[in-house]
């Protein structure tokens, strides 16, 4: 074995900086682009948003433990301002509402219901919508039909749909969830279709077909696997909007039935006190705002990190 160069440069002297004794340069491990988690964590706003979301979710989850009062029990101290304002009472951190119920405790329970409504409807609508979108990208034959159908759904604003469903089913969280889910369907379908038809144009789909894969396997292993993360990101972005619409429905007097606390409903009830005890309406509104803001900021950051192509 001569010392003549082979394809393998021996890492002797100062060439040590050439790093690992890779057999071929192309095999040298590339400097790792920081993992997406790490990159996410570098974005301070995203960290703050994720932290906020986490805290809110935990708070909502453990509402029974954290609540300082029974959210449904009224007291005689009505319209107490938040603790930091004059007239506030430290026992009622965020004050009380028009019925003397502790707003802090109701907020916890309200966030619980609000988040639940958002999650279930976005989950349901996202699932159905993405499936429709994926299918219509996968089977161009049914594409036109499915998309016409989606157009139709799209022409019913969620709030209208909610109103109509409440008319049919009576007030409650269920019709709101259904309305929100249905109205999420066309949006998710549209996005999923966009993503999926991008993937369908890729040659590897054809390669999979050429290998002899069945449609089902092609759909699952090739299309779905390549779209799922983008779709999930979009669905997570949709979450904020769904919560907003849900709150608007509650505000209009649909949604959960009393005494259940729901943030939109709390705001709606509080508007009667707007002039005199603004905190009753403002606190739940701000809570919604914070949740949606955190969801949006976190969703944006997630998208930027995971799939910058997705924009809306």
């Amino acid at each position, binding site marked *: 074995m001569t010392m003549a160069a082979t394809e393998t440069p021996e890492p002797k002297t100062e060439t040590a900086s050439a790093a690992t004794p890779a057999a071929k340069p192309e095999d040298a491990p590339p400097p790792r682009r920081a993992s997406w988690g790490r990159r996410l964590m570098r974005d301070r706003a995203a960290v703050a948003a994720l932290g906020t979301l986490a805290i809110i979710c935990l708070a909502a989850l453990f509402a029974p433990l954290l609540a300082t009062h029974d959210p449904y029990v*009224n007291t005689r101290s009505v319209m107490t301002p938040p603790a930091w304002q004059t007239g506030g009472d430290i026992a009622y951190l965020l004050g009380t509402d028009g*019925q003397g119920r502790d707003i802090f405790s109701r907020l916890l329970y309200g966030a619980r219901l609000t988040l639940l409504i958002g999650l279930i409807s976005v989950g349901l609508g996202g699932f159905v919508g993405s499936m429709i979108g994926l299918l219509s990208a996968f089977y161009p034959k049914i594409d036109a039909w499915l998309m016409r159908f989606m157009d139709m759904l799209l022409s019913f604003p969620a709030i209208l749909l909610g109103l109509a469903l409440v008319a049919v089913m009576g007030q409650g969280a269920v019709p709101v969830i259904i309305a929100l889910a249905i109205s999420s369907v066309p949006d998710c379908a549209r996005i999923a279709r966009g993503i999926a038809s991008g993937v369908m144009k890729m040659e590897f789909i054809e390669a999979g077909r050429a290998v002899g894969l069945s449609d089902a396997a092609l759909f699952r292993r090739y299309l779905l696997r390549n779209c799922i993360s983008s779709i999930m990101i979009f669905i997570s972005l949709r979450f904020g909007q769904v919560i907003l619409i849900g709150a608007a429905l509650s505000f209009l007097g649909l949604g959960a039935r009393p*005494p259940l606390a729901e943030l939109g409903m709390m705001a709606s009830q509080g*508007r*009667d*006190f707007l002039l005199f005890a603004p905190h009753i309406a403002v606190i739940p509104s701000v809570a919604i705002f914070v949740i949606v803001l955190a969801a949006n900021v976190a969703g944006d950051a997630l998208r930027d990190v995971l799939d910058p192509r997705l924009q809306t």
Partner: protein
Amino acid sequence: SAQTVTILRQQDSNKYDPPAITALSGSEVLFMMGDTLVALNEDMQTIEPLLAKSWDVSEDGKTYTFHIKEGVKFCDGKPMTAEDIAYSINRWISPELKSGVAWRAGDVKEVVALDDYTLKYELNAPYSELLYQLAQSFGTVVDKENVEALGADFGVTGFNGTGPFCWESWDPRNEMVLTKHEGYNWGPPMYGEGAAKVDKVIWKIVPEESTRTVALLTGQGDVSYYVPYIGLGKLRSMPNIEVVRSDAAFWTNYIGFKIDKPGVSDPAVREAINLAVNREAMAEDMFFSEVDPAYSYVSKGALDYNAEVDAHLIKYDPDAAVKVLEDAGWMLNADGVREKDGVTLEPVIYTFTGEWAKTSEAVQADLLKVGINMQIQPYDATVIWGKLATQEFDMYTMGFPYVSTGDALNLYFRSANIPSPNRMNWDDPETDKLLADAAAATTDEKRASDYGDVLLKVQKAAVWLPIYEKPMQVAYVKNMAPIKPHNIYGAGLYKGLQLAFTD
């Protein structure tokens, strides 16, 4: 211009056809656009002449003869005659119109114009309430030609009345504009029989409660009796706003029980509910002491009130409530709800949205403390009436204006009125008999005693949970002349004849 008064109110009416519209939102405008045979004084007791300058009642109390004023004209200038009144009353009670308030006209045998200025009103049975009912908006005199010409659009695109104001335009859900009826001089004596003092009245719809308050504050409205209780204190403190109040107004808000539904069929439960709900606290905290907590079914000041009832009022005592329940065998189950013989105390209440929903929530919270888990089902004012005619619920909320004890009792406790407005399903022959006797009574004493007996009976049975009695409060900007609130059917401004600006 300054001669335009903007009245703020909560909701619009579907149309303005007197017998077809039973809601306050219709009546309050109709009172201004039209006139009735007689008027009611703001003391809520005295009947005053309006279209009828006088009337005679026959011995048996079955026939009323009205002598009609001369010179009364419709807005379009056409003279009004007894014929028009007869037409209007007959229209009110005609089966085709299906008016929900036809019964208020009494058991009519015949209403005919004897001549241009004499009207005969003949009943099958004496009806002591008749004049009060004739003062309500349902008997507002309409113009036959106008009715027939507009058909389905009557009260929608126009209305030809004899009232102090005339229909100018209606933008549904936004505003109703009325203009002064020139030459009007047949108003009730209490208002001095003259024409309206402003040129224009705008009834503006503002559904948001706080917005109404703010709108008055910022001068976007001149007068309103739909100010939320929370706003009244604030308005009172404003230098440019006056709030006046009338206690001669009888309006009670109550929650009724369907007494044949499991759970609430047990008088002990109903009693316990009456004990458990802190109405005083509600009146203070939720209504800012603008209302009086109610314990009796009709106000003490109402005609024919039975003082004996005072001994049977159920006041707030949650401990007693628990005791009553436990004595009756209603024990807490694992969920903290009382239960007996497989029946859990989870009564469903049908309630209006808005203020009533809040009331129900407070009641709900109080009841929860004694182990009763009330379920609230709010309905919009337009649908709830249909819902309340069913047997689906256990409890319901209702508020009603009245002038006398009999007014209230006749409405709610006659078995013939099941399922609505007797939504309690109160089916008691003795009550029926007493009520019939009272209606036909020819002396005040007899009537008072009969009504008093009924009142005592139902009060003892705890078929209601009275919540509060609400006075009429009108808030207006100070550059308006002082207003004396009226309370007929809850219409605080009645004919609008006192509306005037001082400058």
